């Protein structure tokens, strides 16, 4: 294991990916052009995939890149291009909206810190934890077979619904 001073390589990578995730999230919020927002969301999702790799969830990291950064964000960009959205003109931010945002974020933050302070986090990573694609697939096709099939039906329903919704005259 590579070491930098007292820090392990994985810890350094954690701080890099976490910082990148949060930075791109903030940039997504503050950029006025929706295309820039979408691009920063792609970067956020890619660095989240890095965090998944650090947590040894390799299959989920691949799925995150393929489904989110690939399919979902292409859909977002298609819609932005289709609607031909201009950069948001500088509207005055309502003081009420900002106050509401700060209050709700503060409430959730208070909940988070209170529950974190009360719970002793004794969980540790055991080194012989097998979380490969094979183990995930075995679990998915034995214990979680019924939810898996239901999700496939859900995707079909969503597809039919989208085709119906995008017809010209909704009648």
């Amino acid at each position, binding site marked *: 294991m590579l070491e930098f001073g*007292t820090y392990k390589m994985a*810890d350094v990578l*954690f701080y890099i990916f976490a910082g990148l*995730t*949060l930075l791109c*999230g*903030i940039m*997504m*919020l503050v950029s006025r052009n*929706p295309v820039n*927002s*979408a691009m920063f*969301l792609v970067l*956020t999702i890619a660095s*989240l995939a890095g965090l*998944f790799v650090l*947590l040894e*969830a390799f*299959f*989920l990291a691949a*799925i*995150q890149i393929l*489904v*989110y950064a690939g*399919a*979902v964000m292409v859909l*977002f960009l298609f*819609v932005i291009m289709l*609607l031909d*959205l201009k950069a*948001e003109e500088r*509207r005055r*931010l309502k003081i009420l*909206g900002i106050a509401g*945002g700060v209050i*709700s*974020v503060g409430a*959730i*933050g208070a909940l988070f810190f209170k529950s*974190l302070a009360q719970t002793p*986090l004794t*969980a*540790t*990573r*055991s080194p012989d934890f097998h*979380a490969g694609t094979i183990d*995930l697939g075995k*679990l998915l096709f034995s214990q*979680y077979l019924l*939810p898996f099939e239901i*999700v496939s039906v*859900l*995707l079909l*329903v*969503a597809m039919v*619904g*989208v085709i119906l*919704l*995008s017809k010209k005259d*909704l009648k």
Partner: protein
Amino acid sequence: MNHVGLEHYLAVSFLLFALGLFGVIIRRNVLVIYMSLELMLNAANLALVAFSRFNNNLDGQVFVFFTITVAAAEVAVGLALIVALYRKRQTAHVEDLRTMKL
């Protein structure tokens, strides 16, 4: 020696969720609000994967797998709704969509 533990991942997940919530409340563009919703979903996914790894239990990862699938379906339906709304009203700002407001 500083070791990254579960609480670090939970803190990142919380901050990401807070960013998404803040975006949903203060942004005015429907599409950006939708992207902030995706950010909140991703924050929940990160917390689930972290719990799964630190409790040495694979069920959390299966749950995240289902979440990603449902999110993909949800994005498709939501964007179709936004496009239908834009065709009717020619706007993507929540302030201009006030038909159901008193």
